[in-house]
């Protein structure tokens, strides 16, 4: 029995090493990305204070002014609108799928939602241009001009349709699958005994869901929303196609805006000609990455842990 299987053992060890290498590669990739972007952004970070970068109002690359505030504000607006639209719809849908829907309905609706996740973002953009933008330009915009003069964030003089609202609507639909699938999973993870305990006391299903299920599932639902936010932050093409891309901080949902990802995507072609431009764009990518990482890690560690302690 002494080492007769030498060849097989060596093969096992070599394969293990090779797999370790790919695992290290995959695991390290996210760090490599952050590091790579940081190194490329460093010239700009060295020449300008971070504060000026974040809160500078003017974006004039040819004059060396790289204020990212309009873009950061634009990103926040679009993401906020998207979450405001998506949140109630997604939670209600998740509750329906987890609590009310008969098995047959579930088995039809869930694949549909998965399909939604698979549609390319350019196609969302095309849909936005075909449907959402004209609707805002022809219906909602004029309505707001006529009736919402004094309402903050909703008043407008004129809207071409390419706006924060259009970006938000398209983005909302794009984050549906993320929020719904995670929330549904969380709701279904609430133990049946706890529901039954409430139902046995004579609570209606609605009361049970509101007072027991939702409460138990809250950290997980928060995690779902945070994941949705981080998804929305980084989405590029669809938003780029419908948000209008004017480098000014929007004042109303009918104003055009210019989110960070769109900035990167739109300008990369011309980076070589202007000094520091390339640094500024990779710096924007780094900022975006940091936001997204922050939300993602928060969702997966903090809320994830709260969730585990809560339910099990």
């Amino acid at each position, binding site marked *: *029995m*002494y*080492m*007769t*299987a030498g060849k*097989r*053992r060596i093969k096992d060890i070599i394969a293990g090493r090779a797999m370790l290498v790919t695992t290290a590669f995959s695991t390290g990739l996210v760090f490599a990305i952050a590091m790579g972007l940081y190194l490329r952004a460093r010239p700009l970070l060295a020449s300008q204070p971070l504060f000026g970068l974040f809160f500078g109002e003017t974006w004039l690359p040819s004059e060396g002014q790289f204020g990212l505030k309009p873009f950061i504000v634009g990103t926040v607006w679009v993401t906020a609108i998207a979450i405001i639209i998506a949140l109630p719809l997604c939670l209600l849908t998740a509750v329906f799928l987890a609590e009310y829907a008969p098995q047959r309905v579930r088995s039809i609706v869930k694949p549909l939602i998965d399909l939604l996740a698979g549609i390319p973002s350019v196609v969302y953009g095309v849909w936005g241009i075909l449907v959402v933008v004209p609707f805002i330009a022809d219906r909602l915009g004029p309505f707001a001009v006529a009736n919402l003069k004094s309402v903050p964030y909703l008043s407008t003089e004129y809207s071409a349709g390419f706006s924060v609202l259009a970006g938000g609507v398209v983005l909302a639909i794009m984050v549906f699958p993320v929020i719904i699938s995670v929330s549904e999973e969380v709701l279904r993870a609430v133990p049946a005994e706890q529901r039954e305990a409430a139902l046995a006391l004579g609570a209606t299903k609605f009361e049970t869901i509101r007072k027991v299920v939702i409460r138990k599932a809250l950290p997980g639902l928060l995690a779902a929303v945070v994941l949705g936010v981080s998804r929305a932050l980084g989405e590029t093409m669809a938003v780029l196609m419908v948000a209008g891309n004017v480098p000014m901080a929007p004042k109303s949902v009918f104003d055009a805006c210019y989110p960070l990802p769109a900035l990167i995507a739109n300008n990369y072609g011309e980076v070589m000609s202007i000094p520091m431009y390339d640094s500024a764009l990779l710096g924007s990518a780094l900022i975006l990455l940091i936001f997204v990482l922050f939300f993602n890690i928060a969702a997966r560690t903090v809320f994830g842990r709260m969730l585990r302690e809560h339910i099990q």
Partner: protein
Amino acid sequence: MKAQIEVRNLSLAYRGNLALKDIGVDIPEKQVTAIIGPSGCGKSSLLRCLNRMIDLIPGTKVRGKVTLDGEDIYGSRVDVMDLRKRVGMICQKPVPLPMSIYENVAFGPRLYGVHGKALKHAVERSLRSAGLWEEVKDRLKEPAIRLSIGQQQRLCLARGLAVEPEVLLFDEPTSSLDPVSARHVEQQVAELKRDYTVVIVTHDLHQAKRVADHVMFLYLGELIENGTTTQVFESPQDYWTRMYVAGAGI
């Protein structure tokens, strides 16, 4: 009678708790040895120490010595893969591999470089000794999961036999089977002792009586009694053994 496996001062710790305490026993060659005892007494753990499947459970620590034909299987130069080839194991629930009936049995020999005609012969021989050949010889290409659960268990036996082991370990091989297939597998086990040393863990005392030549009674991780089947069942020496074989719940 020659002892093929000798267990000396074997202790097993699982996350700091002793699961087996200072076990010492000889397992005779070409005989059936049954390990009996109430559930949780360490029967399966002891069995898994004999082919080092216990290594796969994280947090376990083995002390003491187990020798197979005089060689310490926990020695530093031992090839565990080769050990497991020599000491085969059949588990509680039948676990057909995700492939055809033929490929299931051929899996082991293929690992050791057997192919062509020799492989075919090995498969047929193993299926015959597991008493399954007549039932499956015309459907060797079918997925193994299409077999009935009793047939699956005999397939797992055939798969274990195909690597030509010297010792066979059975971990409650009939507990998930219906009575008829259980009887079938049991008969097969009894016949195997002509060629193999067999160790069987069982919670079924009647089964132990029917198939075993020797019986070990384990209780709370300790070896309480050990002897021929007649000794242990007819004139048990220890109080706990007496209670257990009399059918009192301990």
